[in-house]
């Protein structure tokens, strides 16, 4: 009495067959396309004072409010069912196939990239048991300590990098970053290792040093040619568009008149003032003021909006916002790990005495790389060598460890834009640039810049014991609790 039932119970629109490279591409998109408005602009971008808004709801980073919605935990909520589950599924599929060892290794590297961004925002998170719902029916993954996650990520990168083999098959065009280029992935793995090792300088300098040296020895991204970026298209499906551009436009800047920004967003005065004061040529690559519905990049009229406003300023339309024809183009490439960052971190490693070389040269290379990368957003935002050299001559590398560190990471703060998640992590680690918090009545942090984002409230309901254990260990699920590497 059940003949034909098995065939009937097959969904005609789905397939039992996984194509690892197709899912890998999806995992790449999804790791980048995660709450790019709420997390990038409102939470992280506001906290590092790149962005400001006069509204309450998006004011997490701007004024340390959380009045409504899901913004402080969107990144967490979205990451696991999409990028985490996808990359975990790719890994499970190719893991045991020796012929696909490069696919396995690159997937491990991408998984490390995916996870470090989650833990950097939240601290302890489900890691070792995450994404195992189908494979091992684990519906309540435990929260791993950030320390153990970091050590595992570093190990994973090490193993994956050393297992890469240029003679074997790779992802080819399914890899949006390097087209499957195994040698470049090796550099990416060591560069990510370098980023992660430097991240733990405050909490565990000796481990940081060990891994930083290992990363440098392995070979990191120092040249434009190796810069890791993903290309997007302007037309067609949303998933193929630059997710930061798409999200920032949708939530603020698409109206294109400077006045009706949906979530009340603008560039923050801290950011624009810094660029303007230092005659930074990146200012006119990134920022515009709308004048009669036309974008005007004239440096002199650029100004940022104060953080901590509670109502719309009457001159709202005259503040700077991101240029929708350069950095917010729908087909703007997205830089995920740059030679600018690596050069600046090299400068730091050298002044720490963990590496040899000319810190000043790395510092200059870092700035140069950042400025040259503006050309990726189109000719209109390209910065010529004369302007770069002019800037470098006025911003020579200084002396004294603290001053040098401030200089390096103030540059990092500019050059990481618009990767606000990384900018926020780097700022929390280094404290540079020195930002003045706002103190608005009703804020949740007692007038301090948030140190993390919030776990989803649903976790307390659905994964209660593990959630409670994490909170007991790490501290209350608040914006002020410091995560492991963010030692005071």
């Amino acid at each position, binding site marked *: 009495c059940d003949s034909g039932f098995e065939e*009937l119970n097959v969904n005609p629109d789905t397939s039992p*067959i996984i*194509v690892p490279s197709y899912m890998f591409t*999806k995992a790449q998109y999804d790791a980048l396309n995660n709450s790019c408005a709420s997390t990038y602009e409102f939470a992280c971008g506001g906290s590092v004072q790149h962005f400001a808004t006069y509204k309450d709801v998006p004011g997490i980073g701007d004024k340390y409010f959380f009045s409504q919605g899901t913004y402080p935990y969107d990144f967490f909520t979205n990451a696991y069912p999409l990028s985490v589950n996808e990359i975990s599924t790719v890994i499970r599929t190719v893991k045991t196939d020796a012929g696909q060892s490069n696919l396995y290794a690159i997937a491990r590297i991408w998984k490390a990239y995916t996870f470090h961004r989650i833990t950097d925002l939240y601290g302890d998170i489900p890691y070792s048991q995450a994404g195992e*719902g189908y494979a091992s029916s684990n519906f309540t993954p435990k929260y791993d300590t950030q320390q153990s996650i970091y050590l595992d990520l570093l190990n994973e990168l090490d193993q994956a990098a050393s297992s890469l083999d240029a003679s074997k098959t790779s992802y080819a065009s399914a890899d949006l970053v390097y087209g499957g280029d195994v040698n470049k992935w090796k550099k990416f793995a060591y560069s990510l290792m370098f980023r992660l090792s430097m991240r733990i300088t405050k909490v565990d300098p000796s481990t940081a040093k060990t891994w930083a040296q290992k990363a440098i020895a392995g070979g990191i991204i120092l040249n434009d040619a190796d810069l890791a970026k993903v290309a997007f*298209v302007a037309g067609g499906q949303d998933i193929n568009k630059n997710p930061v551009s798409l999200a920032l436009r949708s939530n603020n800047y698409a109206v294109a008149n400077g006045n009706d920004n949906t979530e009340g967003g603008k560039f923050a005065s801290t950011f624009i003032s810094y660029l303007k004061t230092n005659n930074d040529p990146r200012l006119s690559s990134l920022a515009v003021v709308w004048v009669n519905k036309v974008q005007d990049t004239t440096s002199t009229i650029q100004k940022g909006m104060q953080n901590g406003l509670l*109502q719309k300023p009457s001159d709202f339309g005259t503040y700077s916002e991101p240029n929708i024809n350069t950095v917010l183009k729908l087909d703007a490439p997205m830089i995920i790990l740059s030679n600018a960052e690596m050069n600046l971190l090299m400068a730091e490693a050298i002044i720490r005495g963990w590496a040899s070389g000319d810190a000043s040269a790395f510092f200059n290379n870092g700035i140069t790389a950042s400025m040259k990368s503006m050309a990726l957003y189109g000719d209109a935002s390209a910065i010529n060598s004369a302007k770069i050299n002019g800037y470098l001559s006025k911003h020579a590398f200084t002396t004294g460890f603290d001053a040098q560190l401030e200089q390096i990471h103030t540059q990092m703060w500019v050059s990481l834009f618009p990767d606000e998640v990384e900018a926020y992590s780097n700022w929390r680690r280094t404290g540079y640039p020195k930002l003045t918090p706002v103190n608005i009545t009703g804020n*949740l942090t007692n007038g301090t810049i948030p140190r993390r984002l919030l776990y989803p409230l649903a976790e307390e309901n659905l994964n209660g014991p593990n959630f409670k254990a994490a909170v007991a260990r790490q501290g209350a699920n608040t914006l002020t609790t410091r995560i492991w590497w963010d030692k005071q």
Partner: protein
Amino acid sequence: YSNVEKSTNSAFSTTAETLLTELKGKVTSAKDATPVVGASVFLKENPRIGTSTDVDGNFKLNVPENLEKGKLTLVISTVGFEKQEIALSSGQTQVDVTLKESLQVLSEVVVTALGVKRDKKALAYSVTEISGGEFTQARETNLANSLSGKIAGVNATSLATGAGGSSRVVIRGNGSLSGDNQPLYVINGMPIDNSTPGGSPTTGGGGQNVDRGDGIGGINPDDIESISVLKGGTAAALYGSRAANGVILITTKKGAVKKGIGIEYNSTATIDQVVDYTNWQYQYGQGDGGVKPTSQAQAISWGRRSWGAKMDGQPYISFDGLQHPYSPQKNNISNFYNTGTTFSNTVAFSGGNETTSFRASLADIDNKSILPNSTFNRKVANLSLSSKIGQRITIDALAQYNLEKAHNRPSAGDAPGNPNWSNYMIANTVDVRSLSPGYDANGREIQWNETPYASNSYFVVNRYTNDDTKNRFIGQFGIRYDILQNLFIKGNVSRDFSNYNYVGIIPTGTVYTTNAAGEYQGIKSAVSETNSLLTLNYNTKLRSLQVNAMFGGNQRNFTREEIYTNGTQYIIPFFYSFTNLATATTRPATQRLATNSLFGSLDLDYKGILFLNASARQDWFSTLGIKNNTILYPALGSSFILSQAVELPSVINYAKLRASWAQVGGGVPDPYTLNQTYSMVTSSGQPLQQITTTNGEYLLNNPNLKPFTSTTYEAGLDAKLFNNKLGVDLTYYLRRTTDDIVKTAISGTSGYQYSYVNVGQVDNQGIELLLTGSLLKTKNFSWDASYNFAYNQNKVVKLADGVNTIQLATSVGSWAYVNTDIGQPYGIIKGYTMVKDAKGNIVYDTSTGYPMKSGLTQIGQGVAPYTMGLSNKFNYKNFSLDILLDGKFGNEVFSVMNVYATRFGLQQSTLAGRETGLALSGVTASGDSYSNNIPVANLRLYYDNLKNYSNLFIYDGSFIKLRQIIFSYRIPSNFLKFAKIQSASISFVARNLFTLYKKTENFDPESSYTNSNAQGFEAFGLPRTRSFGLNLSVKF
């Protein structure tokens, strides 16, 4: 109830015979010698010769001489007495008869599973039958809503989603933790589809979050002969898994053998008035920090802040840039909404001869909603045919066609596109009409507050559109072949097919959409529910034992084929076509599933005293793995007519005891939930593959699912007391669901958001009581009352390993959850409270100055355990008055609206501190005393923060409502003869007239906005209405 009796009841006169002898007599009751009125008296040999007794019990009958005396037998029968036969002796002219009271008084025939009519006393379970006439006068657009308060144990919840919206009916509590818990609807023995196209509204959906109506809503009450509600498992065992939540059996009207064509016309016109439950504060007006807006920009920023100065009636600048008096605006709700109207017209024709009868009806129901520009129309054509071909073959057929059109169904849930939101939340000195028409010269939505997500309600009603059309065909065909006199075979096929087409336009100019360029959603859905049933029936009598046996099989096929077309940003503004979108996706969704079943039943009747019923059914489910896809489940029941078996005290006229035990098994409701699959994502670049999502949800598939079982133990008592004036029907039941297949929310960190799992055990225990009384009866006046009461205690005994809780729903902002936890009833509401110390002092967080927030804790129960209904019917001559009250008790509602109203300063409770600030005192976490003064400038933020303590917004959901009044006048037939009208009546009808008891503030306790399991939340539904009007019913 033989045919003989029926014909004699209507045939008075005898045919003219040449010689007649007059036979006289008196019929009296054996019990108290009172005359028996209206008994029929006739000759057994020629039933056409008969009469009936008059008010004194006397009769006269002319007996023809040519029928040989001495061989004649007189039959005397009437309802409530045992039939008696008396042999007449030759020449006899006088015969006095005493009749024994019989059980026939209770011999009610009710429709049971598979459409089988059975004597109620033989049933081992509780069945309630309601005549179709109960639904045709004071109408609800959705039939299921009319069940409210009428049947013990049936919890009908009407939703705040307007005329074309869906219903939620739950019988004997929520047995399943996550299934839809609604009963199976069956018409003439065959199931229909009751799904909601595009799914039920969710708590947080955007502007397309509308309730698109359900299947039962499409049934026209005028076509209904009766509705039987099968509550217990035994009753339902023959329908299998989907009957685990009970069955509502609808029997449609048929044609009758009669001369000429019968015409019935029924017309109802009602108006719907908005009921405004809000009771905001009107002392302090729009503004913030104790001051009123001083500029237009500020008035917009503060559009939903009533934190201003004391109202003084002076002009101030409002969000439209104009001066308005700073005065209370108390009528925003009634000013925004219209008076709704509903016109319902049905005309039915019926007729037939000895071999064939038919009934055809046409119905039109037309609703103009209280929401401006929102309408709903339903046309139903129904044709029923019965034919007897020769001696052995009987054919029945039913064809129904529905054409349903809805225009601008209201969106529910949180703010975007919800037209109700701004009417409630607008600052209390702003006249909502100043938002009209909601758009500027460029068609752009005019913002009245700081967030684009809180839509301008006039923009929504004037510019948003959604239109849907449902074409539905229900076809049934049955053939019965009598092989022998006591053996027949019966085959039925039925198909409920609907084609649904929805287009929702969020227009150009909607400020919350990207670039204010709008959004589009289209749903095309074709659903069919097909059932084929074959049964073999045999009955025989073995001495004192009547035996009925039945064996059969059923095949069910269900398909749903849907195409979702979604897109954003109209390229050419105001051109609302799918072809004109900057981004667009098309997504097919297919569901196909089948269940095959074999079943049998055996009924034994011992002398009408003891009845025994046994049945068994085996199901095979396509939705389960081939190893786990079948289940056999039995049912056993017995009833015992105590009053027949032993002598009872004379006050007890009838008593029946019944007991039953039944199992029902079931599979996964949805197909394709077993193995993980992968699907392609439309891409403009590299090919993309994802783990398959189900309707956009990350659903974890589970290959190990097995069927669940639901076991019901039921015992009951039926009694008639005091000369049948009082009826009692009492039932106790225990319904135990084990291995329930539950779709539960799981931690997203598993990689999935939902999963189907077999889970533990849920017990529902309850009592149902039905009291019926004939309280007063005189020649011209009668008063009948009926009271039903039900109590259901629901307890979750066990959950699956690794599952801590079943999360059924979350509110906006995760302020509250509807959960199921071990040891608690189904659907508890969980949330947060202020932390208090042992002495009850509030513990403050000194860094924020706000009370500390507790961990997640239980704050209420979403489903009412007690329900009741009270109906009173009065008749005086040609007038009748019917009053229905109903009530529910013991549940709570979490009010999302009151959270917002507190945040925005509308709630009365926010008046504290307006003049001099709010002094708070309590303790710190370390136990030191703490005090804090919140200055007026910061009051808004203080009250805004109260959203974190969800228990402040929990309300007792108990209510008693005056649900229905029908006041009728039956026009005397002698006035109607000239028009050949058989009968006519005109009635004043009213529904939902008054709430007699409630505890909720600012909202109606029945404000649920979804028919899903998310019961216990209120969130800006359409206001409730009070309806009244006139009904005219004419028969030709």
